[in-house]
């Protein structure tokens, strides 16, 4: 079926770019491809699903009273395998769960950690929310961006509050929180990220003692931050 009859419209409907403040969302301008079939629940008879992915998703489905709860874990499984939530991966997950791929995409796009556009498999987040930005997070993000420019393996993003304002400004490298990150350690951090090494081992959150002086064994009053 051709799309020609839509084009019966006068030219100006589609061509004028009056303002540049469109959305960052690519989907807004996306039309349906009328040559495709509708995306119904994928039939197992014509959808091939690799055994590991199937097993992983089925195990998740078994954990909940309602299998739909497995949506997010299933999407994470796809993302782990493909680096992002690929349409093919979503179709396979949908097949295992017996839902439409649209359902899973709709869920995936709601959440910041699930990527539905191609991106690198290494997820690096820099918190740029209020407490971190009071401590220089925006500059940190800028510096790290410079260092990692052009690296397709790394998906570097500014992120909303990661719940680690005590180590502001901070970075999450595939879930490993490090901070406070002094600007002069950015090149080293970038190198470690690219090399897949443990990021700034001395600054990892999990190794930090409590700040509360009443806690026995705590480092006592925290070493005061100099860069604030």
């Amino acid at each position, binding site marked *: 079926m051709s799309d020609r009859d839509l084009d019966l419209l006068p030219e100006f409907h589609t061509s004028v770019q009056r303002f540049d403040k469109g959305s960052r969302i690519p989907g807004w301008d996306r039309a349906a491809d009328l040559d495709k079939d509708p995306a119904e629940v994928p039939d197992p008879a014509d959808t091939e699903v690799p055994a590991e992915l199937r097993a992983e998703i089925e195990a998740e489905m078994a954990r909940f009273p309602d299998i739909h709860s497995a949506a997010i874990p299933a999407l994470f499984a796809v993302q782990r395998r493909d680096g992002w939530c690929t349409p093919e991966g979503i179709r396979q997950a949908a097949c295992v769960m017996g839902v439409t791929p649209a359902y899973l995409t709709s869920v995936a796009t709601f959440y910041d950690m699930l990527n539905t556009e191609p991106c690198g498999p290494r997820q690096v987040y820099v918190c740029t929310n209020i*407490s971190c930005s009071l401590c220089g997070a925006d500059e940190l993000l800028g510096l790290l961006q410079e260092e990692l420019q052009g690296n397709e393996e790394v998906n570097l993003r500014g992120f909303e509050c990661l719940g680690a304002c005590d180590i502001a400004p901070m970075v999450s490298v595939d879930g490993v929180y490090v901070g406070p990150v002094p600007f002069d350690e950015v090149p080293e951090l970038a190198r470690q990220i690219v090399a897949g090494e443990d990021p700034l081992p001395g600054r990892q959150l999990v190794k930090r003692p409590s700040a509360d002086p009443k806690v026995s064994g705590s480092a006592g009053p*925290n070493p005061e931050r100099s860069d604030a």
Partner: protein
Amino acid sequence: MTDLLLFKGIDEPGLNTIDVYERTGGYERLKKAFAMPHAELIEQLTDSGLRGRGGAGFSMGKKASFIPQGDMQKYVVCNADESEPGTFKDRELIQKNPHQLIEGVIIASYAVGATISFIYIRGEYAQQADILEAALVEARERGYLGENILGSGFSLDLQLYRGAGAYICGEETGLLDSLEGKRGNPRLKPPFPAVEGLYGGPTLINNVETLCTVPHIIDMGAKEYAAIGVQDSTGTKLVSISGNVKRPGNYEIELGTPSREIIYGLAGGPPDGREIKCWFPGGSSSPVLTADDLDLSYDFDTMAKAGSMLGSGAIIVVDDSNSVVDVAWKLAKFYTHESCGKCTPCREGTKWTQTMIERIKDGTATPMDLDIMASVQDQIIGHCLCVLGDAMAMPVGSLIAKFRDEFEAEIEEARQRRERELMGGVLA
């Protein structure tokens, strides 16, 4: 100050393992709870005066008492989504003492008769989730979870659920939708989760810190717990302090401690030479207070009377080197990004506020825009399904109200800057 409760021995090496936890008296409170009838347990929780630590400050015991009795499947859901900017207390509790939380969830589940329970942890807390997952395995192995726990006849299936990055999933009904595998849109209330929650069953939802407190109440008894703190704000509270302070971090304080003592005494105050311009007493959603409010007692009611709230107990300090316009912009941008998009006033109002502040910054706003902005905040507050929109409107509204001069000065300054740039362009 009384002894530490939640943070007691928190830095003890290996506390996250069941052996160390048991050695420090862990899971003993569970046995004590199993010996109590359900009604008495709930009474204890009510009498303790424990108010929810997740933000709303609702009585934990009262909420538990709303859960209907009967044979239907009931659930307890622990809210470990902790995404309120400035808040990071649950993270430390989970990471360093996961069994304290598990014990709390088991007792709460037992109290309301829930046999399937969940801990919903934000996906970004990957390391903490791994630690908790390992602790759950240990607890199952030791028989604290599963069928017929400790011979009590009570069974509990406790599962960990990792979120995927959405602040709104901290809102209890958004969390339920997310846990059910949907987009995390908040639901229409009523019905409240206590009546119709997860998978349609009665559900008790509590914050991590709230649930971690439960074993301590069982341990010391409601009366003794209620003696800590002040009237209507009993017990201790973890406070996350961040922003422009020398010693950011989590501190366990007795409710009713003067705010100054927390900000200056514990966290060291702002860096030398700087003054506090404003502070958020309860996460980024709370209306800001100023240096004039530093002597207020840090408890639920005093904060509310001062026109703000204790919220999640996260204090963010902003010193005088920062512009309030930037602070307002960060807030608006955050809530715009996190609005689920269901309600018109929240979806459009947050976005509009963000663009208006951006116009202030780029020099195309006028002081009249401040009035529009203020009225937009008024039209968000109280008009939506949940309070995410309010969570932007209240602090932004309070910033405009308390720092209007500064906003106007910035508008003027930016306008001149822009004019210069435009003129420069013409001249060049």
